[in-house]
C-alpha cells in the first residue's frame, strides 16, 4: 500500500486569506495568536520564571509581531498553534540566553543568581531542538499520525476517521514512524558520542 501524503492543515487557507488582506481572516488569525503569550507564559513558569511579568509581556509583543511577519513561511504542516509553539518556545530560550550573556553587573548578577534557569533552559532547548527536526524527517504520512496521536490527542479510531483509512493502517503508520524516529534519535546520540538508546 502506498503512503498518502497528508493534506495541508486547514489553517494554511486561513493564513493565505489573511495575507491577502481578508479582514475576517486577519481578525480570526490575530485572535488565534493569543497563544503566543500563553506559550511564553507556560515555558517561563516551567523555567522558574526567569522573566518578570512585565518583561514577559514585552517579549510576547515582540514575538507576536515576529510570528506575524513570518506567516508567509507557514506551510500548513500543523495547526497555527503548533507552529507558534515551536517558534515561541525557541525564542524564549534564545532571549533568555542572550539576556544572561549581557555584560556588566546586571549580567553577572543574573548569571550567579539563576544558574538553574540556564540548566533548565539548556535541557528544554536541546530536547526540543532534537525532537522537532527529527519529527520533520519522518515520512509525511507517518509524521501526521504521530502528530495527531500525541499533539492533537486523538485516538486511533479518530485518526483513522480523519485520514479516511482503517485504524490498523493508522497504527502501522504510527509504529513505522516510531521505528524511524528511534533510528534518527539514535543516530543523533551516536554523533554526539553517547550511547545508542
Amino acid at each position: 500500500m502506498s503512503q498518502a501524503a497528508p493534506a495541508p492543515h486547514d489553517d494554511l487557507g486561513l493564513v493565505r486569506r489573511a495575507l491577502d488582506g481578508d479582514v475576517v481572516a486577519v481578525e480570526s488569525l490575530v485572535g488565534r495568536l493569543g497563544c503566543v503569550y500563553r506559550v511564553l507564559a507556560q515555558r517561563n513558569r516551567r523555567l522558574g520564571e526567569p522573566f518578570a511579568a512585565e518583561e514577559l509581556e514585552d517579549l510576547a509583543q515582540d514575538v507576536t509581531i515576529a510570528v506575524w511577519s513570518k506567516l508567509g513561511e507557514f506551510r500548513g504542516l500543523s495547526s497555527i498553534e503548533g507552529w507558534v509553539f515551536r517558534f515561541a518556545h525557541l525564542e524564549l530560550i534564545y532571549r533568555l540566553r542572550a539576556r544572561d550573556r549581557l555584560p556588566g553587573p546586571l549580567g553577572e548578577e543574573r548569571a550567579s543568581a539563576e544558574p538553574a534557569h540556564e540548566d533548565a533552559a539548556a535541557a528544554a532547548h536541546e530536547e526540543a531542538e532534537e525532537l522537532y527536526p527529527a519529527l520533520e524527517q519522518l515520512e509525511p504520512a507517518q509524521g501526521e499520525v504521530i502528530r495527531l496521536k500525541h499533539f492533537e490527542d486523538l485516538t486511533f479510531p479518530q485518526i483513522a476517521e480523519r485520514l479516511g483509512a482503517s485504524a490498523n493502517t493508522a497504527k502501522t503508520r504510527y509504529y513505522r514512524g516510531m521505528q524511524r524516529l528511534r533510528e534518527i534519535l539514535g543516530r543523533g546520540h551516536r554523533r554526539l558520542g553517547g550511547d545508542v538508546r
Partner: protein
Amino acid sequence: MSEAMDRRDEILRRLLLEEADPLAAFAHSELAADAGARAELEQLLEAQRRVQALAGNEREALRPSGPGSAARQAEERVLARLREHVATQKPVPSAPRRRVNVALLLAAALALFLGGRWLAAPEPEPDTPLGSGGHIEVLPVATFGEIAWTWTGKRPAGSRFVVHVFDGAASGLDGEVASSPPLEQNRWTPAEDEWTRWPDEIRIHVELWGPGPNELLERSLEVRARRSP
C-alpha cells in the same frame, strides 16, 4: 514504503500500542528470548515517551487562559498591540493573479458591450516585462522544486515576490498548479509533498508586487523546467 508487517513487527507494534505494561507483556510473548527485540521495544518506548512529553508541554501551553485572569488580560494587551501593528501594514496579495484575471474579464465584457475595440487592450502577456525599471531573471532550476531568481533594480519598500507554477502542457495562464506566498527573498522552496505532485514539466513565472492593492510591478519571462528522470 510497504505497510505490510512481518510477525516480529506485528508483535512489537501490539506491545507498543495495546499493552498497559509493554515490557511485562514482552516477557510473556513469543519474542521473550529475543534480546534484540527487547532492546528495540525499550528504544521505541523511550522515543514514544519523549514525543509524549513534548506534545504534553505543547498542549498545556496552548490551553486557553481563564476569562478575566491576569494572563487573559496580558494576552489581550498583546493582541491589541498586534492589531495596531497589522493596521499599519498594507496587505500583500498571496494569489493576485486571480484578481487580475477577474479584472480582465470585466474589462473584456465591458469592451464587448460597448463595441469599442480600443477598450479591449489586453493585459501584457505573461512574458512581457512591465517596464518597472527592474528585471526579474529566473535562474536555471538545479533541483526540481527549488525556484530562484535575480532582481536587478531598486526594490520598492514593502514589495514582495510571488511565484506561479503552471503545467508545462498548458499555455498562457492556464494550468496553474501552485503559487507561492508573498516572499521577501529571491528563492522559493515549496514543501516536498507539494512539488512532488507537480507535473513533470512546469512553466515558472515570478512577479514582483508592490505594497498597494493589485500593484503588479514586474514579471519575469516564462521559464520551463523538467523533472529529472
